[in-house]
């Protein structure tokens, strides 16, 4: 995979994780599951690749982790959005919307509107 597209993917993955966690604290599997649900299986990545991304986000201070008990009484590591993470999500969402709006505008341009 060329590095630039992986960077893009990584950035996107982080945004998706932030979005997933903004709704509720989740463990690793839960995050993957939630992203699948939200994206209707559009992002097919290996599930393990989630964990290095989580570790990076921990270091950036966007999320924190704690060990909790699941509804099935199992011990699992849950990830929570921090205040910095919430800000990051807002900033990235806004940036994403601006960018996607611009791109959408470009893509919807009809040939006649193109400046000669």
């Amino acid at each position, binding site marked *: 995979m060329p590095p630039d597209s992986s960077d893009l993917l990584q950035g996107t993955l982080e945004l998706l994780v932030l979005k997933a966690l903004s709704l509720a604290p989740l*463990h*690793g599997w839960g995050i993957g599951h939630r992203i699948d649900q939200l994206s209707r299986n559009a992002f097919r990545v290996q599930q393990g690749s989630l964990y290095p991304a989580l570790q990076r986000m921990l270091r950036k201070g966007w999320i924190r982790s704690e060990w909790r008990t699941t509804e099935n009484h199992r011990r699992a590591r849950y990830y929570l959005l921090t205040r910095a993470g919430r800000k990051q999500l807002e900033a990235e969402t806004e940036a994403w919307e601006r960018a996607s709006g611009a791109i959408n505008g470009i893509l919807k341009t009809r040939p006649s509107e193109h400046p000669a």
Partner: protein
Amino acid sequence: MSLLTDLGERLKALVFRRRQERELQEEFLFHVERETAERIRLGAAPEAARREARLAFGGVEQYKEAVRDARGIRPLEDLGADLRYAVRSLRRNPGFSATVVLVLGLGLGASTAVFSIMDSVVLAELPYPDPGGLVVVSEKNSPTNIWNISTADAVAIREQQRSFSAWGEVSRMEAALSGAGTPEHVILGRVSAGFFKALGVPAARGRLIEERDEAAEAAAVLVVSHRLAEEKLGGPARALGRSLTLDGVSHEVVGVLPPGRTDMGGVRAAAWTTLKLPAPVRRGPFWLRGVARLKEGVTLDMAAADLAGISARILPLWNDFRDSVARLTPAPLRERIVGRADRQVGLFAGGVLLVLLLAITNVATLVLVRASAREPEVAMRVMLGASRGRIARLLLTENLLLTMMAGALGLLLAWLGLKLAVAQLPDLPRIQNAALDWRAVSVALAAALAAGVLVSLSPIAGGGGEIGRSPARADTRRTGAGRRSNAVRSALVTVEFALALPLLVMAGLLLNSFVRLSRVDPGFDPYGVVATRIALPAAGYPGDSERARFWIQVEQRLGQMPGVDGSGLASDIPPDSPGTNNFNLVDHPVPTGQSEPTTPWYEATPGYFEAMGIPLLDGRMFTPADTVDPVVIVSRAWARRYFPNQRAVGRQLISGGCYDCPRTTIIGVVGDVKNLGLAQSEEAVYDPIGPALARSLQVVVRSNAGTGASLRALRELVHGLDPDLPVRESVIAERFDDTLDDPRRWTAVLGAFAAVGTSLAALGIFGLMSYVVRQRRREIGVRLALGAQPGMVTRFVIARGMRYAAAGSAAGLVVTLLAVGRLRTLLFEVSPTDLMTIGAVAVLLLGVALVACWLPGRRAARIKPLEAISTE
């Protein structure tokens, strides 16, 4: 904020590494189980669900690595692993590790100590504000003939100078401090107010000498050193207002200097009092040191021109001094203080640098030999996939660990060495300030670091083959090490000899010089001679008659002491430096306007020559009548210099430039005495002690009663006459021995360096030849099996080793001849290129090398052919 969390997470990762690994494992397991459960819930068979869940997750180990990388402590973890590995491998080889640490630690310790000494003695700024502007003013008529200035000079400079923002004079004297316990001698600095002003150091308490103290009627005041305040006055806080009696005069303490200020402007004194300059009556005598601070923007050259103008203007005013070449000359204070120490410390530093380089070279050799012994291990690692860079880093870590340990040892040794040096070399200026400060510590650690890198370069670069060598050739026992690494090893050993030879030559020359110095005939018989200096305070002995009465009584009582073979008085005794005086020969006057010759000048009674055992060679001794017409006795060396091949007795001279005084007649010639210390000239002129008897004289006694008894009798004699007089006895033979102390120390230090250097070189060549023998064991075995004589094998090994030793020594000889001229001033009657010394030293070094090569050579000859061939 996020930087902090980042750091925090990394730190956590580092500290809780094991727990995190466990949790990572648990987290992954949970994930797969949860996925399996999900798939079962959606209808998959348990077995298939588990497999699919694993597939969906991906490579567990691969993602674990990715998470570890994301923790951001990878480089540190690697370093930790390298360190653990290094410690393990060094522990496996304790002999090697200890040798390296010891050898390098010694080298680093010595050089760190010397760095600290150089730093405080030579390099450090003088401890005054803006020290570059401080100058000392002296009279000078040739580059080497420099002397003090006179009252007339000082007064003229005060009135006419335009170069200095502050100007002062200082004169050092001894004074009897009484009133507080036993009377004792202290060194007193007499200074004008400008002296302290020029130096710019404020008093810690009270005030310094000020201009109002210089008025003729002003009360006697005293500024004391911090130490004197502590020892005699109950601490600086209580010193002010107290009074101390110096030479019978009461002085009020008005100020205390800051702690550690034992010398001011290069003059060491316990206390400072006012110098009240009398109006000059003639140009001489020259007894003051001028200290000044240059005005802003005034250079040394400008000040020199200013002072030269003053010299020219005052020359015609006085008729007792006609030297038109002599100039008042400013010199930087630093130059006057550091002076000769530059060269001594330079020699010291050169020696230490050689030892350090030798130590590093030696360690490099050791590391190289070890690197090749480890070749199979390294090859195995390469085969298992370690990269060249990784292995180089491993070796570097190991070497750095070693050299850093050596650095720590070195610091400890430097600390001890400094204590020793401060105690052993008290005459080096400013050595008291030498201490291990942070700069010395960083120099030591930087040197250790550099040594580690240098040492690692040898196996990494020099023997490149040893690291990246293809695993197929790992069995070096059969193939032998690469040519290149052998060349590096031999080059290192050659360098060691090139470094050791200069060290040995230096030590050899100093030793030779020392032996000659200690064999010098002092010109008299010092055994059984004791002396004491007595200074009569002005208060108790105000006039000539009181002093004369005292000295006459001393002479009388000396004659009655039991066991005395001779006794007398003199102004100075060997090996002290006496005063000097200028003179002009009536028969051969110097041309007008030229400098008159100067010579050491003593005052003595006839009994002095008898007591010292100085023979009268020609003419007659002083008689009591000689105090009327001026007469002198001269030494044989003086007579030979000024009246070569002629009789000096009966000739006349004009003394001290006093052209109006009656002419002085030479009445006798006495034997030469090494008056100024053993290495100095023997020229001397003796005046009879005249009616104006001196305030301070040496009382000399030759006795067969034993030195202890004579000293006691002498002290009782003086105290019988005046119990307040401080007595400072000396045994002349000891005093002469003391003058050998300095050369003895330098010789010992350089000798120790040379011994260490030679041992290192010997160790180096021994190691190399042992390695060569081990490496070629099989070949030697084959040769022996084919009938080679064991002697031939030994000779072959020795010849090969001696080639390196000889080449190194030859290179060292070239280095020595280039650099050794700098030793000249430290040597006595030995040329720096003395062939005997250099030859003897070279033979010694090669002899040591021969033994060092012979040992492995003998081992080679004893190789059992069958074993050597079959065990491979």
